[in-house]
């Protein structure tokens, strides 16, 4: 647990000082909002608002991939990844520390971009804010657990920027399916469908367990 917290602290302090992931993720999510705002019919209306749940997840998932691409790139500088590989701890906790840091950053971007979407498309998110935050967090958890594992694999490949989305996005389909359906029902009908939540919870759990167990091998070489 101490190693997990140490890695989380290290990643967040490094990010606070460099802001290289947060700025890239935030700017990307904001650009999506701007482009969609300009592409929507003038005056917005229910037609444009019907697309918001899917568009939110387009922005969040690609911003997440952008951040995850940098999650291990910073470990390559000075070969600092060796410090983690040599640490006498269960490498699953190294994985959890890295995944949690990415999760925190993605939550920040999700909060800021949800606000931008609400302003651009004249949405009142206040009645569903708590539940929307929960769905966003569940989707982010799935993205960050599997994304951290694949980021660690992709970082040592020649085309890591391309490799991560190629590996990750096809496997993220169940998470995105559950997250988009839950967000859609929440924003359009004010309800939270249990099957969508179930899908999110199960895939999050499976991704977390598989990634935790596989990280020992991934970090080896």
């Amino acid at each position, binding site marked *: 647990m101490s190693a997990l917290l140490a*890695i989380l602290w290290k990643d967040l302090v490094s990010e606070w000082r460099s802001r290289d992931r947060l700025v890239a993720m935030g700017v990307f999510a904001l650009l999506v909002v701007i482009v969609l705002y300009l592409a929507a019919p003038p005056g917005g209306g229910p037609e444009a608002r019907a697309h918001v749940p899917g568009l939110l997840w387009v922005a969040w998932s690609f911003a997440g991939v952008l951040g995850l691409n940098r999650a291990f790139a910073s470990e390559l500088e000075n070969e600092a990844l060796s410090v983690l590989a*040599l640490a006498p701890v269960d490498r699953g906790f190294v994985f959890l520390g890295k995944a949690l840091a990415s999760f925190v950053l993605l939550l920040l971007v999700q909060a800021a971009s949800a606000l931008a979407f609400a302003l651009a498309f004249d949405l009142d998110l206040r009645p569903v804010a708590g539940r929307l935050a929960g769905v966003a967090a569940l989707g982010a958890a799935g993205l960050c657990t599997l994304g951290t594992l694949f980021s660690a694999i992709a970082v040592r490949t020649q085309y890591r920027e391309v490799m991560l989305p190629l590996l990750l996005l096809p496997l993220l389909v169940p998470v995105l399916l559950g997250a988009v359906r839950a967000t859609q029902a929440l924003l359009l009908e004010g309800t939270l469908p249990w099957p969508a939540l179930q899908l999110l919870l199960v895939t999050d759990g499976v991704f977390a367990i598989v990634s935790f167990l596989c990280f020992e091998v991934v970090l080896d070489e």
Partner: protein
Amino acid sequence: MSVLLRAQGLAKRFGAVTALFPLDLELEAGRTLAVLGPNGAGKSTLLRLLAGLARPSTGALEIDAAARSRAERRRAIGLVGHASFLYPMLTTRENLVLAARLHGLDAPGERAERALAEEELLGVADRRAGALSRGLAQRVAIARALLHAPRLVLLDEPWTGLDARAAERLTRRLAALPSAGRALVIVSHDLGRVAGLAARALVLVRGRAGWLAAEALHSEAALAPAYAACVEQLEGAA
């Protein structure tokens, strides 16, 4: 004396290229082994294999037979690599505190402070590692590697970038480590420094290994011709 490191038939291939041919190696606590050889000989590959950062293609490696788990074996190792392994956005002190926490040491802040004092690095404790000179970064890297008092210390060109005073202090420190029950593996081109430190020397040339007689390590004057002869012989074999 307990054996800290035992390798049998340890070899490493990268595709069709053999970086290290099968090698047998044994190192007891309290001993220092020098690994010498020209560039591209496989010295750093050997060190990465011993540290557990790379998997051998064939052969077996045993680190600290008393260790019961992978984590315990990793705890036994302190590695100074070719790179500094430092996080550039963290300060010198923060890098050491992080290493202490990762090794589960008590009072990580105090341990880091003590290591900074020992290495005379308190003046740069709050400077970001990315802003340190090569020599200072190397001193921090050495402090980080020795922070958890590892039993097996692996060093890749440890004197690189150090000024004369720091290099001399490091040599004295390394000379004292075996008496504390540690074993050292030093990869270096600096024959003069390793001559006074090591009891055994392994020479690598294009992945092939040869051993130097113990007498060759008594002085640089004795080591230089013995090393040159061994390199020539191995080059002929390759």
